[in-house]
Each structure stands twice: as C-alpha cells, then as structure tokens.
C-alpha cells in the first residue's frame, strides 16, 4: 500500500541526511577523511580549532546572541498575547505581523540594515536638522561587536514565528472564560493570562522555541549581514573555513561544527534551566496571589515592542525598494533625487539563473513535501494512531544546527558526485520544508469532515477517487497555503543552498547574501526585493486560485 510508504519515506528523508550529515561532520573532526588521506583518529584538529584566534569569543557571541534574541522574542510575544489576546487590536496586529513569517531571514536582515546603518533611512530622516550630520557618521551600528543589531534582526523574524505558533495553540485553551474568571478574582489581564493560561500554551510551542534557539545560535545569513566581524559568530567562521580552497581546512571546519553542536546544546540546556526558573517564578506569583491590577505599562511596552519590531522591518523593506529604484541619492536626503530602472535592468541578465533555480528548488521540494505529508496523514487515519515520538523526528532537522549536519551532507554529496546538482539541492531543501509542510497541513487535514469520505464510499467510489475528487478539492485552500509556506521556507534557505549548490547552483537568497559585503545598495535592493516578492507571490496564488476555481461555490470561499 502506497500510504504505508509515506511515514517510512518521511523518516528516511528527514533522519537520513541528518544522520549521514552528522557522521560526515564528526568523523573528519577527529581526522577521519579517507578522501584526503585521513584514516587515523586524532585530536589534532580539535587542538588546531582551539588554537584559532578568539575562537571562544566567537562561540560566546553565538551562544549569547542566540539565547538573548530568543528570550527577548518570547518575552515580547508572551506579554503581547497576555495583554491583548481577544481584543480587536490584537486581531489587527496579528494580520500585520503574519506576512513577515514568509519573509526570508536574509531579507529581514537587509531591511534592518538599510534602516539603521549610519547612512540608513533613520539617520537620513534625522539629519541634518537633529543630528547636524552632513555625511554618514563613523559609527559601527551594523556589525557592532556586541551583536546588538544581529539580535535585533533575529528578534524581528522570531517574533512573527513565535506569535504564529502561539496563535495556533490558543484555540486549545479556554481564553475568554479564563480571562473572565481571572478578572472576577481581581487579576490584571497579564497576570491572569500568565498564571492561568501561559503554561498550557507554552507546552504547545516548546519544540518551536527549541527550533528557534537552534537556529539563532547557528545562524549564518543574518550574521553575515548584521553580525560582528572581528571575530564573527562561530557559524560564519565555519562556513569561511569550509569554503577555503585548501581542502585540509575541512578538518578544522568539521571540528568547528562539533563546537557549534556543543554551543547549541549548551544553549538548549541553559534554556531548560530558564524554563525551570520561569516556572518557579510563576508558581510563586500564583500562590502568592499576585494580582498586578495596574499592568497598563507592561501591556503598553509589549504592544510597543511588537509594533516596533514589525514596523522596523516594513520600513526597512520600503527603504530597500527605494534603493532598488534610486538614481542619485545623496546623504542626508530622505528620498533619491531621481528614480530609475537602471539597477533592475543591470541585474536582469545575472538574476535569471538564480531565479529559475529558486523557483525550481522551491516548487519541487514543496511538491514532494506535500505528497509525503498527505501520505503520512492518510496513514495516520488508516491506523487510527497519532504519531507521538515520531513528531520529534519531524523537528530533528530544525533542532540540530544546520551547519553541523549540512557540512557532512556536502561531503557525502561530493563522494557520490552529486554536489551542485538539482536533485541534491531539492533533497537538502526538502529536509527543511517537510516539517513545515506537515505542520501546516496537519490541522486542516484532521478538521476535514470524514463523513464526506464515507458518503462517497457508499456511492462506490474507490479510495483514490475519494481522495482526488472529494477530499483534495475540498481542501484546495489548505493545500495551497501549505504549498506557499513550504515555498517560502525553501526561498529563505541560505546555508543548505550555499553548501549543496557549491556556488554553481545559486538562489536569490544565496546571491543576495553574497552581495552583502559588496555594498552596492541598489543591487542588494533588487535582490532583497525579489526575496520579498517570491514568498508573497506564493501566498497570492494560495488565496486567488481557489477563489477563482470555486467562484461559483459559496461554501468554498472563506
């Protein structure tokens, strides 16, 4: 039976690359790399790693920026939901923030950079009337050694992600009733929510939070665009070593990946400690009956932080768009003196290939992920079992730092001669698209009224007829939304694209990040614009196509 293959294939496709990849990273770290003549185990490469200048600083930056950005993001989301969930304002902001989820990390980072850089939009708007600057000040705002702007970039992307995860968990808790109950006992909104509902909500979003930590402690693209450079965060240095023409550097890079694994593991362990402390504080507050009736300031701050993080990205994106059409644009003018299509025309010949690769990799990986998700969900229904521990496997590629296993995967691809081929790129994207595709399809799939299926069976329709003539058409919108999410994930993938594409297969995102150091703002503007546009197109298709196909049927319009 085909559905039996679904879960099996999914497990193999998700765990295979991670397992092989980890092996391909760990073994060379200890000197085992037969292709380069390494057949004995040694600690030399680890020693060489620790002898690298400022290696501990790099590791510390990764750990601190990852943990701090996650902590800040979760605090903003938690207090915002606690203070505002159920209000009209909440619903409005939710619609404002959700589109940011589909924005690639790199595009958000560029947006922020274009906003806050010394010659960025903020400085222009404030100059010279406020600052007196006639030329961009010599300040290290972007790439600051503390990693503050990098953290801001991460927060801007993690807040929408965590907010959406919380929104998905909220319907499962009795929000309105608990709010009334807590209010009747004299609790403020925030205290009532945190004491009465947050533990149940947090339990649901715990794995996504872990995924955020794993990502933030090992991020490369945001770090390249916004992060410190002397020294750079660990993951950035690893990729540099990996791309070194001297193949012997692979051992060093692998040893570094091992350190990256340890850093992420330590971050997760520290986070579990923070969870414990948070729980203890929560119990103290609840048992102490802390009412916090006057929480307007806290609510205001949470709202302000939410608006700021979303608003900054939108303002940055607008700036990016301006730059891509800008002719002459001197500091401190707030607007370009002239507008031109020159940058777009200039970039056109070399953007075609990456654009095609982006579309192909995104479409194919999403298609496969969608098929596998449907097969898995069908199998779940057949057996009547929900996957318990198997769901952890789904999160595996999101919980292991990308660098730690994509390195090894690259080695495996070199061995099999498949590096920089389309199938390899699609496979590497699939590993990351699959979890999101499954999670996006799971709830709508279970929400489908199975009596429709029984009716159709009573009419003598075979299983596949029922699937293709009844269930899938009725779920068109959910399936296309899943597709848009999967496609957006694929478009945003940086590291797997760089390592598996090996510079020969490039996507919009890998090209955009490569341009970051070049500093041609107009060209970066064009690439970042495409990065923003492609996921948006996916969601536009997901909204418009079902509305068009089913325009005659009212119950198919939502």
């Amino acid at each position, binding site marked *: 039976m085909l559905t039996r293959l679904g879960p099996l294939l999914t497990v193999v496709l998700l765990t295979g690359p991670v397992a092989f990849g980890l092996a391909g990273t760990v073994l060379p770290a200890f000197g085992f790399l037969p292709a380069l003549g390494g057949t004995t185990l040694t600690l030399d490469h680890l020693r060489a790693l620790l002898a690298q200048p400022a290696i501990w600083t790099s590791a510390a930056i990764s750990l601190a920026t990852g943990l701090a950005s996650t902590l800040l993001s979760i605090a903003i989301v938690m207090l915002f939901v606690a203070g505002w969930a159920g209000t009209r304002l909440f619903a409005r902001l939710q619609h404002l923030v959700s589109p940011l989820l589909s924005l690639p990390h790199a595009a958000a980072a560029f947006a922020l950079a274009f906003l806050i850089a010394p010659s960025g939009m903020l400085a222009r708007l404030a100059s010279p009337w406020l600052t007196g600057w006639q030329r961009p000040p010599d300040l290290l705002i972007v790439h600051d050694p503390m990693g503050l702007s990098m953290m801001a970039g991460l927060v801007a992307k993690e807040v929408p992600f965590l907010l959406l995860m919380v929104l998905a968990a909220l319907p499962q808790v009795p929000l309105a009733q608990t709010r009334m109950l807590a209010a009747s006992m004299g609790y403020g909104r925030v205290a009532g929510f945190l004491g009465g509902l947050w533990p149940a909500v947090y339990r649901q979003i715990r794995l996504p939070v872990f995924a955020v930590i794993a990502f933030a402690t090992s991020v490369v693209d945001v770090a390249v665009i916004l992060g410190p450079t002397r020294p750079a965060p660990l993951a950035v240095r690893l990729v540099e070593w990996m791309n070194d023409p001297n193949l012997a550097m692979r051992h060093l890079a692998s040893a570094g990946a091992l350190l990256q694994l340890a850093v992420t593991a330590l971050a997760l362990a520290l986070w579990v400690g923070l969870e414990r402390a948070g729980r203890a504080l929560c119990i103290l507050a609840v048992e102490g009956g802390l009412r916090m009736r006057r929480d307007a300031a806290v609510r205001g701050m949470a709202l302000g932080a939410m608006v700021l993080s979303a608003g900054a990205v939108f303002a940055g994106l607008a700036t990016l768009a301006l730059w891509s059409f800008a002719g002459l644009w001197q500091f401190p003018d707030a607007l370009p003196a002239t507008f031109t299509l020159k940058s777009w025309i200039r970039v056109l010949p070399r953007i075609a290939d990456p654009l095609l690769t982006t579309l192909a990799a995104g479409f194919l990986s999403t298609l496969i992920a969608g098929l596998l998700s449907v097969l898995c969900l069908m199998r779940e229904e057949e057996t009547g079992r929900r996957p318990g521990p198997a769901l952890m496997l789904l999160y595996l590629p999101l919980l292991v730092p990308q660098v730690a296993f994509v390195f090894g995967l690259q080695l495996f691809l070199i061995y099999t001669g498949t590096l920089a081929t389309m199938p390899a790129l699609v496979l590497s994207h699939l590993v990351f698209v699959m979890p999101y595709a499954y999670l996006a399809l799971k709830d709508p799939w279970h929400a489908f009224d199975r009596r429709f299926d*029984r009716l159709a*069976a*009573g009419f*003598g329709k075979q299983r596949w007829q029922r699937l293709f003539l009844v269930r899938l058409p009725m779920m068109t919108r959910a399936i296309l939304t899943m597709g848009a999410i999967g496609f957006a994930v694929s478009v945003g993938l940086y590291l797997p694209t760089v390592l598996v594409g090996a510079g020969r297969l490039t996507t919009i995102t890998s090209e955009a990040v490569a341009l970051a150091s070049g500093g041609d703002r107009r060209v970066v503007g064009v690439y970042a614009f495409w990065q923003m546009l492609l996921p948006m197109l996916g969601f536009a298709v997901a909204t418009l196509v079902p509305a068009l196909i089913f325009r005659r049927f009212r119950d198919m319009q939502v």
Partner: protein
Amino acid sequence: MEGLFLDGVRIALGGRLLVSLTRHVPPGAVLTVMGPSGAGKSSLLAYLGGFLDPAFTACGRALVDGVEITALPAEERHVGILFQDPLLFPHMSVAGNLMFALPESVKGRAERRRRAEAALCGVGMAGLGGRDPATLSGGQKARVALARVLVSEPRMLLLDEPFSKLDTQLRQQMRQLVFSKARESGLPVLLVTHDMADARAAGGEIVKIGA
C-alpha cells in the same frame, strides 16, 4: 434471502459488548435502532458502512439480497447513508453532486445529466440542478441529499438520525418522503434515532440497545 439480514452481529469495545443483533429487514421495510448516546448506535452504522474504528471488535455478518456486504470493502458495499447534515459536496453544483453519486455503468454525459434531473424531479426539486448547494434552504438540501443517495443505486439505506436537525414541520415532510422513496425502491432501511416519533413514522420493528 431478500432484504437485509443481520446474522449474529456482535460489536464490542474493549471487552464491553455494545450490540448483539440478529434481524431480518425485508425490502422496503425499516428496522429502527434506538438507544442513548454511546450505546453503540453509530458503531453499528460504521460496521455496516465499512468504517468501524479499529478500536472496536466485531463478529457476525450482514447480507443484503444474499450478498455478504461485511466481507466487501466499503466502496463495494453500495450502502447509501443519510447523515444528520445533508453534506452536499460544496465544490460541485447540485446536479454535479448527483452525477458524482450515479453509478459508472450509466454512460454518456447527456444520459447522466438526464438521470440526475429526473432524480431531482422525484424529490420536488426539478430544474435546480445548476445551483450552488450553498444557496439552497435547509429543506432543499435535505431533499437533494435524499435524491443523491437514491440515484447511487444502493443495496440498502442507513439513516443516521437524518431528521434531527430539521424543524418540526420539515421533519414530518422529510420522514414521509424518505420512507415512501425507500418503499418505492424496495430498499431495506436501518434507522438509528433517539426520537420516538421517527420510529413511529418508520412503522417497522424497533430494537432498543444499551438500555
């Protein structure tokens, strides 16, 4: 044997026996099964329809006109079901719903369309084939659902409290329409309900389970 024959049907959940039934329902007759919720009414329907959850265990067999339907996969049983809700496919027109249910042996688009229109006419819905089901009233939807199940040429009918969501007046009409259509077509009917008025209108034997 003509009609539906339930031959020693026993359904249990976790060792607890829910249903134990041997009955004969002649063509056109109705067997009404009554009982409180959780008594196993819906598991009996699922058993006959071929959708019993693996958590249940069932033994015995059910035959319609001598064919052991419980030995067949769901899609070969040709058991027509009417649920509480009309459950018209929202992505097909009214006629599309009927043509979807029509057996594949009816060939030719024109002929299939003609059969669908005739079935609509039979439930007093002539000429509404082109409509979007979402634009129909509750009573009209119920009629289309009935026409749809009849046009699929089932061996028997399963009725899962099909009148409970209709208002009183409509309920009376639909009862008469459904039972007269079943008699006309000579279909054995199994009705599950907890409304005594349904049982009386059905006029057949009443079995109480789980009491």
